Protein backbone atom coordinates (compact mmCIF):
# COMPACT_ATOMS: atom_id res chain seq x y z
CA UNK A 1 0.00 0.00 0.00
CA UNK A 2 1.39 3.42 -0.90
CA UNK A 3 1.70 6.15 1.74
CA UNK A 4 -1.27 8.10 0.42
CA UNK A 5 -3.44 4.96 0.31
CA UNK A 6 -2.55 4.24 3.91
CA UNK A 7 -3.35 7.82 4.96
CA UNK A 8 -6.76 7.43 3.34
CA UNK A 9 -7.48 3.92 4.60
CA UNK A 10 -6.81 4.58 8.30
CA UNK A 11 -9.69 6.09 10.29
CA UNK A 12 -9.66 9.87 10.28
CA UNK A 13 -7.70 11.51 13.15
CA UNK A 14 -6.46 8.09 14.35
CA UNK A 15 -2.78 8.22 13.35
CA UNK A 16 -0.14 9.04 15.94
CA UNK A 17 2.07 11.95 14.99
CA UNK A 18 5.33 10.08 14.31
CA UNK A 19 3.69 7.58 11.99
CA UNK A 20 1.62 10.24 10.27
CA UNK A 21 4.61 12.46 9.60
CA UNK A 22 6.59 9.51 8.19
CA UNK A 23 3.75 8.67 5.80
CA UNK A 24 3.29 12.32 4.81
CA UNK A 25 7.01 12.78 4.20
CA UNK A 26 7.22 9.74 1.93
CA UNK A 27 4.37 11.08 -0.21
CA UNK A 28 5.56 14.71 -0.11
CA UNK A 29 9.04 13.84 -1.35
CA UNK A 30 7.50 12.20 -4.40
CA UNK A 31 5.13 15.13 -4.90
CA UNK A 32 7.93 17.68 -4.72
CA UNK A 33 9.89 15.71 -7.28
CA UNK A 34 6.85 15.33 -9.53
CA UNK A 35 5.99 19.02 -9.51
CA UNK A 36 9.65 19.92 -10.01
CA UNK A 37 9.72 17.83 -13.18
CA UNK A 38 6.33 18.98 -14.48
CA UNK A 39 6.01 22.67 -13.67
CA UNK A 40 8.62 25.02 -15.06
CA UNK A 41 7.78 27.95 -12.74
CA UNK A 42 8.01 25.60 -9.75
CA UNK A 43 11.30 24.18 -11.01
CA UNK A 44 12.70 27.68 -11.34
CA UNK A 45 11.71 28.54 -7.78
CA UNK A 46 13.27 25.35 -6.38
CA UNK A 47 16.43 25.84 -8.44
CA UNK A 48 16.73 29.42 -7.21
CA UNK A 49 16.41 28.21 -3.65
CA UNK A 50 19.50 26.07 -4.30
CA UNK A 51 17.84 22.79 -3.39
CA UNK A 52 19.89 20.00 -4.98
CA UNK A 53 18.18 16.79 -3.99
CA UNK A 54 14.52 17.10 -4.78
CA UNK A 55 13.54 13.95 -2.97
CA UNK A 56 15.93 13.80 -0.03
CA UNK A 57 14.28 15.68 2.77
CA UNK A 58 14.78 14.50 6.36
CA UNK A 59 11.58 16.03 7.71
CA UNK A 60 8.46 17.85 6.61
CA UNK A 61 10.01 21.08 7.87
CA UNK A 62 12.82 20.77 5.30
CA UNK A 63 10.43 20.71 2.35
CA UNK A 64 10.36 23.85 0.22
CA UNK A 65 7.25 26.03 0.57
CA UNK A 66 5.92 28.68 -1.74
CA UNK A 67 3.74 31.68 -0.90
CA UNK A 68 0.07 31.11 -1.54
CA UNK A 69 -0.03 34.47 -3.34
CA UNK A 70 1.97 32.98 -6.23
CA UNK A 71 -1.17 31.33 -7.56
CA UNK A 72 -2.61 34.78 -8.18
CA UNK A 73 0.13 35.96 -10.49
CA UNK A 74 0.76 32.81 -12.48
CA UNK A 75 -1.25 29.85 -13.59
CA UNK A 76 1.10 27.30 -12.05
CA UNK A 77 0.19 23.73 -12.87
CA UNK A 78 1.89 20.38 -13.37
CA UNK A 79 -0.40 18.74 -15.91
CA UNK A 80 -1.13 19.54 -19.57
CA UNK A 81 -4.21 21.67 -20.36
CA UNK A 82 -5.92 18.59 -21.81
CA UNK A 83 -6.00 16.99 -18.35
CA UNK A 84 -7.48 20.01 -16.56
CA UNK A 85 -11.13 19.30 -15.80
CA UNK A 86 -11.85 22.47 -13.85
CA UNK A 87 -10.20 25.61 -12.61
CA UNK A 88 -11.12 26.89 -9.18
CA UNK A 89 -10.94 30.59 -8.51
CA UNK A 90 -10.49 32.13 -5.09
CA UNK A 91 -12.85 34.55 -3.51
CA UNK A 92 -11.68 38.11 -3.77
CA UNK A 93 -13.12 41.58 -3.73
CA UNK A 94 -13.51 43.29 -7.10
CA UNK A 95 -10.13 45.01 -7.22
CA UNK A 96 -8.14 41.95 -6.15
CA UNK A 97 -6.46 39.39 -8.32
CA UNK A 98 -7.85 35.90 -7.81
CA UNK A 99 -6.02 32.61 -7.54
CA UNK A 100 -6.57 30.11 -10.33
CA UNK A 101 -6.13 26.48 -9.34
CA UNK A 102 -6.09 23.87 -12.11
CA UNK A 103 -7.52 20.48 -11.15
CA UNK A 104 -7.18 17.20 -12.98
CA UNK A 105 -9.49 14.26 -12.38
CA UNK A 106 -7.20 12.61 -9.83
CA UNK A 107 -6.82 15.74 -7.67
CA UNK A 108 -10.52 16.48 -7.86
CA UNK A 109 -11.39 12.94 -6.73
CA UNK A 110 -8.84 13.03 -3.90
CA UNK A 111 -10.33 16.33 -2.70
CA UNK A 112 -13.84 14.93 -2.65
CA UNK A 113 -12.76 11.75 -0.85
CA UNK A 114 -10.72 13.73 1.68
CA UNK A 115 -13.61 16.03 2.46
CA UNK A 116 -15.94 13.05 2.81
CA UNK A 117 -13.63 11.30 5.23
CA UNK A 118 -13.41 14.41 7.43
CA UNK A 119 -17.08 15.41 7.36
CA UNK A 120 -18.48 11.90 7.86
CA UNK A 121 -16.18 11.42 10.87
CA UNK A 122 -18.16 14.30 12.42
CA UNK A 123 -21.72 13.72 11.21
CA UNK A 124 -21.82 10.05 10.18
CA UNK A 125 -22.71 8.36 6.89
CA UNK A 126 -26.38 9.25 6.94
CA UNK A 127 -27.13 12.28 4.76
CA UNK A 128 -29.25 14.73 6.69
CA UNK A 129 -31.81 17.27 5.47
CA UNK A 130 -29.62 20.29 4.73
CA UNK A 131 -30.16 24.02 5.05
CA UNK A 132 -27.66 26.17 3.18
CA UNK A 133 -27.32 29.75 4.42
CA UNK A 134 -26.73 31.19 0.98
CA UNK A 135 -28.55 31.84 -2.28
CA UNK A 136 -28.75 29.26 -5.05
CA UNK A 137 -27.54 32.02 -7.38
CA UNK A 138 -24.05 31.20 -6.05
CA UNK A 139 -24.02 27.91 -7.94
CA UNK A 140 -25.95 29.00 -11.04
CA UNK A 141 -22.92 30.06 -13.05
CA UNK A 142 -21.45 26.66 -13.76
CA UNK A 143 -18.70 27.71 -16.14
CA UNK A 144 -16.87 29.60 -13.43
CA UNK A 145 -17.62 28.25 -10.02
CA UNK A 146 -16.26 30.54 -7.31
CA UNK A 147 -14.58 29.13 -4.23
CA UNK A 148 -17.79 29.95 -2.40
CA UNK A 149 -19.87 28.03 -4.93
CA UNK A 150 -17.46 25.10 -4.98
CA UNK A 151 -17.55 24.97 -1.19
CA UNK A 152 -21.34 24.88 -1.17
CA UNK A 153 -21.53 22.15 -3.77
CA UNK A 154 -18.80 20.09 -2.09
CA UNK A 155 -20.55 20.14 1.27
CA UNK A 156 -23.96 19.49 -0.32
CA UNK A 157 -22.95 15.87 -1.01
CA UNK A 158 -23.37 15.22 2.73
CA UNK A 159 -26.96 16.44 2.85
CA UNK A 160 -30.26 15.81 1.08
CA UNK A 161 -33.41 17.80 0.28
CA UNK A 162 -31.22 20.94 0.10
CA UNK A 163 -32.85 24.23 1.01
CA UNK A 164 -31.16 27.51 0.12
CA UNK A 165 -32.33 29.81 2.90
CA UNK A 166 -31.47 33.15 1.26
CA UNK A 167 -32.95 34.78 -1.82
CA UNK A 168 -30.80 36.52 -4.44
CA UNK A 169 -30.90 39.74 -2.37
CA UNK A 170 -29.48 37.83 0.60
CA UNK A 171 -32.77 38.11 2.48
CA UNK A 172 -33.69 35.18 4.71
CA UNK A 173 -36.71 33.27 3.31
CA UNK A 174 -38.32 33.06 6.75
CA UNK A 175 -41.66 31.51 5.76
CA UNK A 176 -40.03 28.82 3.63
CA UNK A 177 -37.51 28.15 6.39
CA UNK A 178 -40.32 27.62 8.89
CA UNK A 179 -42.09 25.28 6.46
CA UNK A 180 -38.85 23.34 5.91
CA UNK A 181 -38.28 22.98 9.66
CA UNK A 182 -41.86 21.77 10.08
CA UNK A 183 -41.40 19.22 7.30
CA UNK A 184 -38.26 17.85 8.96
CA UNK A 185 -39.19 18.24 12.61
CA UNK A 186 -37.81 15.52 14.89
CA UNK A 187 -35.04 14.89 12.36
CA UNK A 188 -31.37 15.70 12.72
CA UNK A 189 -30.44 18.57 10.38
CA UNK A 190 -27.26 19.77 8.72
CA UNK A 191 -26.64 23.50 8.30
CA UNK A 192 -23.87 24.94 6.22
CA UNK A 193 -22.90 28.51 5.50
CA UNK A 194 -20.10 31.02 5.47
CA UNK A 195 -19.45 32.48 8.90
CA UNK A 196 -20.33 36.08 8.13
CA UNK A 197 -23.51 35.11 6.29
CA UNK A 198 -24.71 32.82 9.08
CA UNK A 199 -24.21 35.68 11.51
CA UNK A 200 -25.57 38.51 9.38
CA UNK A 201 -28.45 36.88 7.51
CA UNK A 202 -29.60 34.06 9.77
CA UNK A 203 -28.72 35.16 13.30
CA UNK A 204 -29.27 38.95 12.95
CA UNK A 205 -32.49 38.50 10.97
CA UNK A 206 -34.03 36.05 13.42
CA UNK A 207 -32.89 38.09 16.40
CA UNK A 208 -34.92 41.07 15.14
CA UNK A 209 -38.13 39.11 14.64
CA UNK A 210 -40.51 37.68 17.21
CA UNK A 211 -40.53 34.34 15.44
CA UNK A 212 -38.54 31.69 17.27
CA UNK A 213 -36.93 28.75 15.54
CA UNK A 214 -35.54 25.67 17.21
CA UNK A 215 -32.30 24.35 15.75
CA UNK A 216 -31.28 22.23 18.73
CA UNK A 217 -31.25 19.15 16.47
CA UNK A 218 -28.98 20.78 13.89
CA UNK A 219 -25.24 20.55 13.27
CA UNK A 220 -23.77 23.75 11.83
CA UNK A 221 -20.59 23.63 9.77
CA UNK A 222 -19.24 27.04 8.78
CA UNK A 223 -16.09 28.63 7.36
CA UNK A 224 -14.77 31.59 5.40
CA UNK A 225 -12.83 33.94 7.62
CA UNK A 226 -13.37 35.85 10.85
CA UNK A 227 -11.99 39.28 10.05
CA UNK A 228 -15.34 40.94 9.49
CA UNK A 229 -16.86 39.44 12.63
CA UNK A 230 -13.86 40.23 14.80
CA UNK A 231 -14.34 43.88 13.73
CA UNK A 232 -17.82 43.60 15.24
CA UNK A 233 -16.30 42.00 18.35
CA UNK A 234 -17.81 38.63 17.48
CA UNK A 235 -15.27 35.97 18.42
CA UNK A 236 -15.82 32.26 17.85
CA UNK A 237 -16.88 31.95 21.50
CA UNK A 238 -19.45 34.75 21.14
CA UNK A 239 -20.67 33.26 17.85
CA UNK A 240 -21.27 29.87 19.45
CA UNK A 241 -22.89 31.17 22.63
CA UNK A 242 -25.21 33.55 20.75
CA UNK A 243 -26.36 30.83 18.34
CA UNK A 244 -26.96 28.58 21.30
CA UNK A 245 -29.02 31.23 23.07
CA UNK A 246 -31.18 32.06 20.05
CA UNK A 247 -31.56 28.65 18.38
CA UNK A 248 -30.56 26.12 21.05
CA UNK A 249 -27.81 25.01 18.68
CA UNK A 250 -25.02 23.07 20.37
CA UNK A 251 -23.09 21.38 17.59
CA UNK A 252 -21.24 24.18 15.81
CA UNK A 253 -18.02 23.48 13.93
CA UNK A 254 -15.90 26.10 12.23
CA UNK A 255 -13.28 24.99 9.72
CA UNK A 256 -10.16 26.56 8.29
CA UNK A 257 -9.25 25.92 4.68
CA UNK A 258 -8.41 27.61 1.42
CA UNK A 259 -9.09 27.24 -2.29
CA UNK A 260 -5.41 26.44 -2.93
CA UNK A 261 -5.83 23.24 -0.89
CA UNK A 262 -9.47 22.23 -1.28
CA UNK A 263 -10.33 19.03 0.59
CA UNK A 264 -7.68 19.63 3.25
CA UNK A 265 -9.88 21.30 5.78
CA UNK A 266 -9.08 21.81 9.43
CA UNK A 267 -12.23 21.20 11.46
CA UNK A 268 -12.86 22.57 14.90
CA UNK A 269 -13.50 19.99 17.62
CA UNK A 270 -15.73 20.08 20.69
CA UNK A 271 -12.89 21.82 22.55
CA UNK A 272 -12.73 24.63 19.99
CA UNK A 273 -9.40 23.47 18.50
CA UNK A 274 -8.68 23.12 14.76
CA UNK A 275 -7.44 19.63 13.82
CA UNK A 276 -5.11 18.48 11.06
CA UNK A 277 -6.64 15.53 9.16
CA UNK A 278 -4.69 12.40 8.13
CA UNK A 279 -3.42 13.81 4.84
CA UNK A 280 -2.43 17.29 6.00
CA UNK A 281 -0.17 19.02 8.51
CA UNK A 282 0.62 22.54 9.57
CA UNK A 283 3.87 24.20 10.53
CA UNK A 284 4.11 27.58 12.28
CA UNK A 285 6.97 29.84 11.15
CA UNK A 286 8.51 32.94 12.67
CA UNK A 287 7.40 36.05 10.82
CA UNK A 288 10.92 37.54 10.97
CA UNK A 289 13.19 34.70 9.86
CA UNK A 290 10.83 31.86 8.78
CA UNK A 291 12.29 29.50 11.37
CA UNK A 292 9.98 26.79 12.72
CA UNK A 293 8.21 27.75 15.94
CA UNK A 294 7.28 25.31 18.72
CA UNK A 295 3.79 24.81 20.15
CA UNK A 296 2.50 27.85 21.98
CA UNK A 297 4.30 30.41 19.78
CA UNK A 298 2.32 32.49 17.30
CA UNK A 299 3.58 32.72 13.73
CA UNK A 300 2.73 32.37 10.06
CA UNK A 301 0.79 29.23 9.11
CA UNK A 302 2.35 26.88 6.53
CA UNK A 303 -0.10 24.27 5.26
CA UNK A 304 0.98 20.86 3.97
CA UNK A 305 -1.31 18.59 1.99
CA UNK A 306 -0.74 15.46 -0.07
CA UNK A 307 -3.81 16.09 -2.24
CA UNK A 308 -2.52 18.58 -4.88
CA UNK A 309 -1.36 16.43 -7.81
CA UNK A 310 -2.10 18.82 -10.66
CA UNK A 311 -0.43 21.96 -9.27
CA UNK A 312 2.47 22.45 -6.83
CA UNK A 313 0.30 23.43 -3.88
CA UNK A 314 1.39 20.71 -1.48
CA UNK A 315 3.41 23.02 0.76
CA UNK A 316 2.20 26.61 1.04
CA UNK A 317 3.02 29.60 3.17
CA UNK A 318 -0.32 31.25 3.94
CA UNK A 319 -0.99 34.83 5.00
CA UNK A 320 -2.61 33.71 8.25
CA UNK A 321 -1.21 33.78 11.77
CA UNK A 322 -1.66 30.72 13.93
CA UNK A 323 -0.47 28.85 17.01
CA UNK A 324 -0.03 25.11 17.53
CA UNK A 325 -1.76 24.14 20.75
CA UNK A 326 -0.64 20.54 21.00
CA UNK A 327 -0.03 17.23 19.22
CA UNK A 328 -1.88 13.92 19.69
CA UNK A 329 -3.31 14.94 23.09
CA UNK A 330 -6.42 17.03 22.51
CA UNK A 331 -9.07 16.17 25.15
CA UNK A 332 -11.51 15.50 22.27
CA UNK A 333 -9.53 12.32 21.48
CA UNK A 334 -8.45 13.19 17.93
CA UNK A 335 -4.80 12.50 17.10
CA UNK A 336 -2.47 14.80 15.20
CA UNK A 337 -1.54 18.46 15.44
CA UNK A 338 -4.20 20.87 16.69
CA UNK A 339 -4.01 24.62 16.52
CA UNK A 340 -5.75 27.99 16.44
CA UNK A 341 -5.78 30.67 13.76
CA UNK A 342 -5.19 34.17 15.08
CA UNK A 343 -5.96 36.55 12.23
CA UNK A 344 -4.05 37.64 9.16
CA UNK A 345 -0.39 38.57 8.81
CA UNK A 346 0.01 42.35 8.91
CA UNK A 347 -0.92 44.08 5.63
CA UNK A 348 -2.31 40.92 4.04
CA UNK A 349 -5.14 41.53 1.64
CA UNK A 350 -8.68 40.43 2.36
CA UNK A 351 -9.49 36.85 1.43
CA UNK A 352 -12.00 34.25 2.47
CA UNK A 353 -15.50 33.61 1.17
CA UNK A 354 -17.12 35.25 4.13
CA UNK A 355 -14.86 38.28 4.42
CA UNK A 356 -14.77 39.21 0.75
CA UNK A 357 -18.55 38.95 0.58
CA UNK A 358 -18.81 41.33 3.54
CA UNK A 359 -16.40 43.73 1.87
CA UNK A 360 -18.44 43.73 -1.34
CA UNK A 361 -21.61 44.45 0.60
CA UNK A 362 -19.98 47.42 2.25
CA UNK A 363 -18.48 48.92 -0.88
CA UNK A 364 -21.53 48.44 -3.11
CA UNK A 365 -24.18 49.00 -0.51
CA UNK A 366 -25.78 45.74 -1.56
CA UNK A 367 -25.00 42.08 -1.70
CA UNK A 368 -23.91 40.26 -4.80
Amino acid sequence: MSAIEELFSLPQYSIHNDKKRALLLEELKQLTQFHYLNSIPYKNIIDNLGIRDKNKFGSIEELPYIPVRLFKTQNIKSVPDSEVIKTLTSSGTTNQQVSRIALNKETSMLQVKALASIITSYIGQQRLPMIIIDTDATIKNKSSLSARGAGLVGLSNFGRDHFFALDENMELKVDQLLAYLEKHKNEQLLLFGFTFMVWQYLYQTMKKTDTKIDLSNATLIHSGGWKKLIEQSVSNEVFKSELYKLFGMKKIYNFYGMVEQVGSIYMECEEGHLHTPNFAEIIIRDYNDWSVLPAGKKGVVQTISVLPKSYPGHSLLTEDMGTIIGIDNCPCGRKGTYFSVNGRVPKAELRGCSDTHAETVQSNGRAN
Partner: protein
Amino acid sequence: MGNLEKLKKAFSESLEIEPETITDELSYSSGNWDSIAHLALIASIETEFDIMLASDDVIDMSSFQKAKEILGKYDIKF
Protein backbone atom coordinates in the same frame (compact mmCIF):
# COMPACT_ATOMS: atom_id res chain seq x y z
CA MET B 1 -40.31 0.18 -16.02
CA GLY B 2 -37.29 -2.06 -15.32
CA ASN B 3 -34.43 -1.01 -13.08
CA LEU B 4 -32.09 -0.32 -15.97
CA GLU B 5 -34.65 1.98 -17.61
CA LYS B 6 -35.26 3.73 -14.31
CA LEU B 7 -31.55 4.35 -13.82
CA LYS B 8 -31.15 5.59 -17.38
CA LYS B 9 -34.09 7.92 -16.84
CA ALA B 10 -32.47 9.36 -13.71
CA PHE B 11 -29.18 9.91 -15.58
CA SER B 12 -30.83 11.29 -18.67
CA GLU B 13 -32.97 13.81 -16.78
CA SER B 14 -30.31 15.07 -14.39
CA LEU B 15 -27.43 15.19 -16.88
CA GLU B 16 -29.69 16.38 -19.72
CA ILE B 17 -28.54 13.69 -22.16
CA GLU B 18 -30.39 11.22 -24.41
CA PRO B 19 -30.97 7.80 -22.74
CA GLU B 20 -29.57 6.08 -25.87
CA THR B 21 -26.17 7.71 -25.31
CA ILE B 22 -25.77 6.25 -21.80
CA THR B 23 -23.20 3.46 -21.55
CA ASP B 24 -21.42 1.80 -18.62
CA GLU B 25 -18.39 3.95 -19.38
CA LEU B 26 -20.24 7.23 -18.85
CA SER B 27 -18.23 8.80 -16.04
CA TYR B 28 -18.01 11.77 -13.73
CA SER B 29 -16.40 14.95 -15.10
CA SER B 30 -17.26 14.03 -18.69
CA GLY B 31 -19.97 15.86 -20.62
CA ASN B 32 -22.53 17.53 -18.36
CA TRP B 33 -21.67 15.43 -15.32
CA ASP B 34 -20.12 17.99 -13.01
CA SER B 35 -20.37 18.49 -9.25
CA ILE B 36 -23.70 20.34 -9.49
CA ALA B 37 -25.29 17.83 -11.87
CA HIS B 38 -24.08 15.13 -9.47
CA LEU B 39 -26.35 16.52 -6.73
CA ALA B 40 -29.31 16.45 -9.12
CA LEU B 41 -28.40 12.92 -10.19
CA ILE B 42 -28.31 11.64 -6.60
CA ALA B 43 -31.67 13.25 -5.80
CA SER B 44 -33.10 11.77 -8.98
CA ILE B 45 -31.83 8.23 -8.25
CA GLU B 46 -33.14 8.42 -4.68
CA THR B 47 -36.59 9.46 -5.90
CA GLU B 48 -36.68 6.91 -8.71
CA PHE B 49 -35.78 3.96 -6.45
CA ASP B 50 -37.15 5.34 -3.17
CA ILE B 51 -33.87 4.87 -1.31
CA MET B 52 -31.46 7.02 0.70
CA LEU B 53 -27.82 6.72 -0.27
CA ALA B 54 -25.01 6.94 2.31
CA SER B 55 -22.43 9.71 1.94
CA ASP B 56 -19.64 7.37 0.80
CA ASP B 57 -21.90 5.93 -1.91
CA VAL B 58 -22.69 9.45 -3.16
CA ILE B 59 -18.96 10.15 -3.36
CA ASP B 60 -18.11 6.80 -5.00
CA MET B 61 -20.74 7.02 -7.73
CA SER B 62 -18.29 7.98 -10.45
CA SER B 63 -19.68 6.14 -13.49
CA PHE B 64 -22.87 4.53 -14.78
CA GLN B 65 -21.33 1.09 -14.16
CA LYS B 66 -20.40 2.13 -10.61
CA ALA B 67 -23.96 3.38 -10.02
CA LYS B 68 -25.30 -0.11 -10.84
CA GLU B 69 -22.79 -1.71 -8.44
CA ILE B 70 -23.66 0.70 -5.63
CA LEU B 71 -27.41 0.25 -6.09
CA GLY B 72 -26.79 -3.49 -5.73
CA LYS B 73 -25.99 -2.81 -2.07
CA TYR B 74 -29.53 -1.45 -1.75
CA ASP B 75 -31.01 -4.66 -3.21
CA ILE B 76 -31.61 -3.14 -6.62
CA LYS B 77 -30.57 -5.67 -9.26
CA PHE B 78 -29.63 -5.08 -12.89
